[in-house]
């Protein structure tokens, strides 16, 4: 019984720890967008052609945050 209780507690602690990954992904997304803006303000004429690259970078950074969110969900509801 104690083991089961510990497992149930660890599940939620693990889910909370996994949620830290979302914050890390937020830093990454902010980095991408901030650097794009810094570059775009220096050379606005080149900015329009690079929005596709911006979104690809955002998507890659964000995907890892989504993975951690998924791990948290799995721990909460599936394990």
């Amino acid at each position, binding site marked *: 019984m104690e083991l089961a*209780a510990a497992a*149930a507690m660890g599940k939620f602690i693990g889910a909370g720890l996994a949620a830290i990954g979302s914050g890390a992904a937020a830093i990454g997304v902010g980095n991408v967008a901030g650097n794009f803006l810094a570059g775009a303000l220096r050379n606005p004429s080149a900015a329009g052609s690079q929005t*596709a690259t911006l979104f*690809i970078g955002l998507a890659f950074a*964000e995907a890892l945050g*989504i993975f951690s*969110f998924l791990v948290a969900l799995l721990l909460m509801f599936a394990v």
Partner: protein
Amino acid sequence: MTDVATEEAAAHGAEHGEGLVFHPLDQFKITRLFGEGPIEWYTPTNATLWMALAIVAILVIFVFGSKGRALIPSRLQSIGEMAYGFVYKMVEDVAGHDGAKFFPMIMTLFIFILTANMLGLLPGSFTPTSHIAVTAVLGFGFFIFVTLLGFAKNGAHFLGLFWMSDAPLILRPIIAVIEVISYFVRPVSHSIRLAGNIMAGHAVMKVFAAFAPLVLMSAIGYVVTPVSILAITAIYALEVLVAFIQAYVFTILACVYLKDALHPGH
């Protein structure tokens, strides 16, 4: 372990009785449309209903939109023309001129995902793209297609995608291993990104929605309820943006993978 399970079930039942109700993931349940019984692969469910509705909406927009072919377009025609031009430009920019051959497939992907996302934002509706089962079919299907296309177009040269010819010779095998792994993770991240984003957004909206009826229970609700209703409104606006951006990201990554298949090698 069974004790914990029964306790959890009891707590789950008690939550329905009084107090705040938090079931943010209940909205993703697949249910039968008609009658009772198990769900087979041919059973009409809410997922298939909303996918069918998305297809009907697409047909209505594009069939009626392209009917008039007026020089000064009607509103419906403008939507169709804008969507067409937007996706065509994206395919040509990213995948190159010979990628434009595959424009119909990319357009289908984009319009289907966008419409399914947007219909899913209607209150009470169901979002098929929030299920990994749906997005994985799209992602893995595209991945298999692109891999076969790469081998068919370039033969063994397609393997040049993994062999960095401008890296130092010692590093090349190591980089090749990393490239192969990253290539096979592509469909996983491709499909989970879409489903995860949509699911996360809808779950967050539901969490805030669960705070909204607090005003009926305690005095603190006079502060919490307006704040949570405002938050739902703001998150809903964000979700409209996310619905478009995720469709865009899915499509543009499909274009990138298509480009890799058509022009491998670094």
